[in-house]
C-alpha cells in the first residue's frame, strides 16, 4: 500500500534513535582529539619524499626526473633540477632536486605522482593534522618538510614499504650482477687482449688476472672519480639554495 515504505523507514530511524541511547556499541564515533583510532594501512592524504639512511639530503631517492611534476593533474608539484650530481643511496651519481615544492592546498591526493615515480621516491603520507594559520605559505611544503625517512614509511604503510624494499633490493642485486658481469666481461677482454697481442710468457699470463682485476677496481671507482669534483660542492650548493 502507498505510504507503507515511509512507515517502515520511520520505524527504522526510530529504532536507531532509541537504540543509540541504550546500546553504546551502536555509537561508532570517537571523541577525536582525546581519543584516536589508528589509521588503516591504506590511508593516504598527501605525498612525501622518501630518503634512505640518516641524512635527508644525502639519502633522498628523488632524482628530479620531473615525471611526477608533469603527471600531477592539478600541477601542484614544482621541481628545480640541480646542475650537478651527487651520489644517491646506492652510491650512483644522480642529479637531485634543488627545489621540490608541493602545494598541499592544491593537491587532491590522487596518488598519481606515486604511481608514476620510477624511483620509489615519493609516497603517500597519513599525516592529516596540517592546519596552519598561513593558508598560502603554510600549505606550500618544501623538500625539507616533505622528506621523511624510510623508517617512517615502514611505520605508516608496513606492507607496501616491505614490497618496495624488496623490489629495490632486487633491482640493486640485478644492477650489481650486471655490473659484475660487465666487469667480468671487461676483465676477460682485458685478460684476452694482453694475452693475444703481447704473446707474453706464461708466468706473465697468470699475473695478468690480478692486474686486470686491479684495473677493474680502477674503472669501478672511475665514475665516482669523474664527478668527484662536483659533488664536493653539490651539497653545499644545495644548502645555500635551500
Amino acid at each position, binding site marked *: 500500500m502507498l505510504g507503507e515504505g515511509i512507515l517502515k523507514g520511520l520505524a527504522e530511524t526510530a529504532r536507531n*534513535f532509541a537504540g543509540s541511547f541504550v546500546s553504546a556499541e551502536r555509537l*561508532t564515533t570517537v571523541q577525536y582529539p582525546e581519543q584516536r583510532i589508528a589509521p588503516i594501512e591504506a590511508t593516504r592524504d598527501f605525498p612525501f619524499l622518501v630518503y634512505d639512511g640518516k641524512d635527508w639530503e644525502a639519502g633522498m631517492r628523488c632524482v628530479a626526473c620531473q615525471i611526477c611534476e608533469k603527471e600531477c593533474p592539478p600541477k601542484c608539484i614544482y621541481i628545480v633540477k640541480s646542475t650537478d650530481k651527487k651520489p644517491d643511496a646506492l652510491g650512483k651519481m644522480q642529479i637531485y632536486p634543488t627545489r621540490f615544492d608541493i602545494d598541499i592546498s592544491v593537491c587532491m591526493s590522487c596518488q598519481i605522482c606515486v604511481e608514476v615515480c620510477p624511483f620509489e621516491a615519493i609516497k603517500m603520507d597519513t599525516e592529516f593534522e596540517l592546519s596552519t594559520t598561513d593558508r598560502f605559505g603554510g600549505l606550500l611544503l618544501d623538500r625539507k618538510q616533505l622528506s621523511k625517512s624510510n623508517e617512517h614509511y615502514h611505520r605508516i604503510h608496513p606492507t607496501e614499504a616491505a614490497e618496495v624494499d624488496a623490489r629495490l633490493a632486487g633491482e640493486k642485486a640485478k644492477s650489481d650482477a650486471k655490473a659484475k658481469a660487465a666487469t667480468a666481461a671487461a676483465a676477460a677482454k682485458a685478460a684476452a687482449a694482453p694475452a693475444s697481442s703481447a704473446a707474453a710468457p706464461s708466468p706473465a699470463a697468470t699475473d695478468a688476472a690480478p692486474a686486470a682485476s686491479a684495473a677493474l677496481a680502477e674503472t669501478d671507482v672511475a665514475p665516482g672519480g669523474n664527478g668527484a669534483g662536483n659533488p664536493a660542492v653539490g651539497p653545499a650548493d644545495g644548502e645555500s639554495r635551500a
Partner: protein
Amino acid sequence: MIEKADQIFVLLQHWLVSFLPAGLQPVAGVLLSVVVIVCLFPALFALAVWMERKGLGRIQNRLGPNRVGPFGLLQPIADGIKSLTKEDIVPRSADAAVHFLAPVVLVVTVFMGFAVLPMGRNMVLADMDAGLLFYFAMGASTELAVFMAGWSSRNKYSLLGAMRAVAQMISYEVVLLLSSVAVVMITGSLSLTKIVEAQNHYSWGLPHWYIFTPWGCAGFVMYAIAATAETNRSPFDLPEGESELVAGYHTEYSGFKFALFFLGEYLAMFSISGLGTTLFLGGWSAPFSWLGWVPSWIWFFSKLMLSIFVFIWMRGTLPRLRQDQLMNFAWKFVLPMCLLNLLVAGLWRFMGDGWPRWVVCSAILVLAYVGMGWGEMRRKHFGARSYRYAE
C-alpha cells in the same frame, strides 16, 4: 491560582502596561506582545536547531554536538557568534538592494504569521475575524522573498533553487489551503480563536479535535505534507538540494544574512506547525479533560515542539524527491484527495450526529486512498534499473 498560571502572560502584560497613560496602553500592549514573540521564537529556533542536530545524530548513531556547553546546548550561541563575525559578501554583479532585502522580507513576513496564532487562552496578538486568510497571505509572501534572493544573486544555482522553490511552494500552497478549507467549512469561521474554541470540548474525557474525525485526519495528513513542502524541509528540500544546487537560493548569502535565511526557515516551520496545531490538534486545548488545569500555553508549545520533532524525524528518514515526482505528487495525488476531502467534510456536516457519518466518511476516504495509491503504485516499476543510452 490555576486561572492565574494559565493567564500569567496576559496578566503580566496588563500589569506592565498599566503604568502607562491610558491613551498609550493599547499600543504599548501590542508592542510588548510583539517584542515577546520576536524574542521567544528565535530562542525556540536555537533550541530546535540543537534538537535537530542531536536528533539527526542519534538517528544516524552519532552523538551530535557535544562540545560547547553541557550536551552541546550552547552550540546555537557559538553558531550565532560565528555567523555574526563572518564576512558579509555581496556578489559584484548582484542586485545589491534586492539581495539585501530578501532575507529581511522573509523573516518579517514569517513573523507576521505569528500575529494571528492563538498561543494560549486569550493569548493572540491580533484576533482577526479572517485570521486564517491573513496567515495564508503572509505565508505566500515568503515565496516572494525566496525568489528575490534567487534572482538578485545572479547565480545560476541560486536562480534554479528559487525557481524550484516557487514552483514547489505554489503547488503546495494550493494543497495547504484546500486542506484547511475543510476546517473552515466545519467551524464556519476564519478566525483561529473560534476554530480552537470549537475543538475545545470533551466527551468521555476525550477532546473534539478535528484530527479525530475522518476528514480531519485526512486533512491533517495532507496539511502536514503541504507544510513540509512549504517550509522546504526534507524530503521536499529541492530548493536547496546541497547535492545538486550548492545551497539553492541562498548560495550567495554569507554571514548574518545567511543566518537570517536559516532563522526564517525555522520560523516558518514553527508558524506552520502552530497553524496545524490550531487547525487540527486543538490549539491550546488539553488532550484529556482531566488535564485541563495545565496552563493552555504549555499545551500549545508542547504540540508545537512535537511537530518539530516529527519534522526532524522525517528529515532523518526520507530521501529527497525528484522535481517531477514532487509535482506529480502534489497535482495528481494530494490535490484530488484534498478536493474529495472537501466533499467528505460537507457530508460530515450534513449527515447529522450518530455513527453512520463515521462509517460513510471513513469508507470514502480510505477507499479513495487505497484506490489512488494502488493506481499510482501500479505504474511504478521496481527492481533493477534499466539504462538507455544515446545511439
